């Protein structure tokens, strides 16, 4: 069956360190993968998109990698800050699909 999984429900790290979040998928042929940020009581906000033929994308302190062999995307936040604390969702669009499928999210906490 098709699955998209974010392995860690929660991740706690020290301010200044790099946070790495994982998104794995099975039985999908992806067209692209997106990462969203969701703060408590708010809707998700788009951060980055990476296509299946791209290995890496960067935006300021954010970096996303995409390995279609491992069927995995990694989301990195370098020099993490307490303000980065939020839930991060990965979302995948399969090549043949009409909808985007979301993972269940990883709640990231950055302690000062």
């Amino acid at each position, binding site marked *: 069956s098709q699955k998209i999984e974010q392995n860690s429900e929660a991740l706690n790290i020290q301010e200044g360190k790099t946070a790495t979040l994982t998104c794995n998928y099975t039985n999908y042929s992806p*067209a*692209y993968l*997106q990462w*969203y940020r*969701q703060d408590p*009581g*708010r*809707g*998700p*906000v*788009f951060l980055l*998109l990476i*296509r299946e033929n791209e290995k890496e994308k960067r935006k300021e302190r954010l970096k996303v990698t995409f390995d279609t062999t491992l069927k995995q995307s990694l989301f990195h936040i370098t020099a993490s800050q307490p303000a980065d604390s939020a*839930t991060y*969702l990965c*979302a995948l*669009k399969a090549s043949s699909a*009409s*909808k*985007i*499928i*979301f993972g*269940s*999210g990883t709640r990231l906490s950055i302690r000062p």
Partner: protein
Amino acid sequence: DTAVSQTPKYLVTQMGNDKSIKCEQNLGHDTMYWYKQDSKKFLKIMFSYNNKELIINETVPNRFSPKSPDKAHLNLHINSLELGDSAVYFCASSQESFGGGHRETQYFGPGTRLLVL
């Protein structure tokens, strides 16, 4: 300026009642969506409309009926509310439904927190 707005923000109601949630987007997007987010934060698509035409209709009880009077509005009406309907409902929009990549990026509203007692 609020890009995607939803009303009401909170909705507390009794089992068996009928309620509606309204959504409006001022982004000029062609496609709008309804998502349900359960207590485990799992975000699942329910419906999608492109230019007022229904294009995605997931396995959702027929007590849920979306209506799109124009491409800037997508409302959700729920009949005979059940306890299991309690969740956060998000409206979203995207530039297109099949444009690929950034044109399908979802812009979410603030959510409507529905509690059925």
